[in-house]
């Protein structure tokens, strides 16, 4: 069985009008057994920058800690906040350093650029190949379902509350068609001067 499907999980991020949203399920499981329903895979790493790390749970935690290490040093030395594109490059580099013994995560990045306030989403494979589309990114064990939901529901220039509805429906319905994703969800909507965190009620199976 695939190592990337050992713990299960789903993350999706979408661009909107001057905003981005990122959503994650909350399941922590070991193969078929669900151990916890409070394990979100999305972390806030900057004032308007979020990273989702679905995949093997131990790598989720370790990669987040190592990212924080590099971020902290960057911000101390350069005396400025890291921009989303730079963060992508850094994460890609971190993953490729382990090219022949990789971290088993396929990250998703969502944020607003601190300088020009442009929305930014990105995802990459487990060895750091980045993909920076104009609409949405998905990752986890139900990517096929997520791609289908996002393609059907997403449209450009959605306002923050519309974006929230869209991303929530995409995640929840895709996760419902996957045995090892779901068990609760968290959605973050990132706008220029505020960030909303909503815990979405889902089917708990």
């Amino acid at each position: 069985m695939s190592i990337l499907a050992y713990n299960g999980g789903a993350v999706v991020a979408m661009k909107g009008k001057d905003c981005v949203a990122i959503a994650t399920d909350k399941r922590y499981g070991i193969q078929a057994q669900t151990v916890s329903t409070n394990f979100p895979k999305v972390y806030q790493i900057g004032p308007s920058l979020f990273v989702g790390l679905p995949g093997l749970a131990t790598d989720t935690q370790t990669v987040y800690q190592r990212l924080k290490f590099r971020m902290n040093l960057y911000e101390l030395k350069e005396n400025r906040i890291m921009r989303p594109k730079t963060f992508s490059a850094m994460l890609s580099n971190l993953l490729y350093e382990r090219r022949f013994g990789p971290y088993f995560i396929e990250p998703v990045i969502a944020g607003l650029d601190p300088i020009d306030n442009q929305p930014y989403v990105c995802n990459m494979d487990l060895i750091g190949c980045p993909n920076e589309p104009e609409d949405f990114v998905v990752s986890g064990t139900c990517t096929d379902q997520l791609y289908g939901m996002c393609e059907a529901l997403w449209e450009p220039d959605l306002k923050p509350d519309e974006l929230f509805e869209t991303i929530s429906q995409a995640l929840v319905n895709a996760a419902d068609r996957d045995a090892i994703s779901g068990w609760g969800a968290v959605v973050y909507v990132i706008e220029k001067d505020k960030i909303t965190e909503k815990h979405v009620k889902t089917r708990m199976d």
Partner: protein
Amino acid sequence: MARRYDTRTTIFSPEGRLYQVEYAMEAISHAGTSLGILATDGILLAAERRNTNKLLDEVFFSEKIYKLNDDMVCSVAGITSDANVLTNELRMIAQRYLLQYGESIPCEQLVSWLCDVKQAYTQYGGKRPFGVSILYMGWDKHYGYQLYQSDPSGNYGGWKATCIGNNSAAAVSSLKQEYKENETTLAEAQALAVKVLSKTLDMTKLTPEKVEMATLTRKDNKTIIRILTSTEVEKLISDFEKSEAEAEAAKKQPPKS
């Protein structure tokens, strides 16, 4: 062949002194002053800026005060290039601890670790010691607000108020008289810092361009590190000059009979 061993830096003198370390401290006593004061509700570091040439393209916002992590700040006195290497190392040490233990490094641990590095340069390698003394201010959950000083020998100590750099001895004795333990608030400490700095700055008058000041306080379980703006520094200086003028005027008054 013997010439190769003549200039080793890491040997004792016949009187039992380490000359290179003492020479390093001599280098620091010519550098811009830095002082730190522990107050009841916070800590502050103040430093004299030496690079005030108009032609300097102002890229850095702080010449001598460096943030090390969320809970600690340091100020340096001595050779700036050596200081850059050490502050970089301090930041790395702090992050490595955070990565390994999942919590912020306690203040004394960080100081102690770097001092072990500094000490190594006085004992082996054949390299010269770092020509930097460092003042550290920080907060941790074990001992609260703390102020430390370290020097090229790798010695360090915890202080309530201290000074390094040019005229530091005069500053320390001045602080000894004026500092009141457990009674000095951050605002009083700021005024005291300006007073002491004005004495150490030789003949030159205090101006906001010449002074850097940073404070560290805790609020809502988070550490707040602030570098004062030049307007705030200007206000502190003008308040100090006003109180100096009042003291002068009071002296000149004939004593009431």
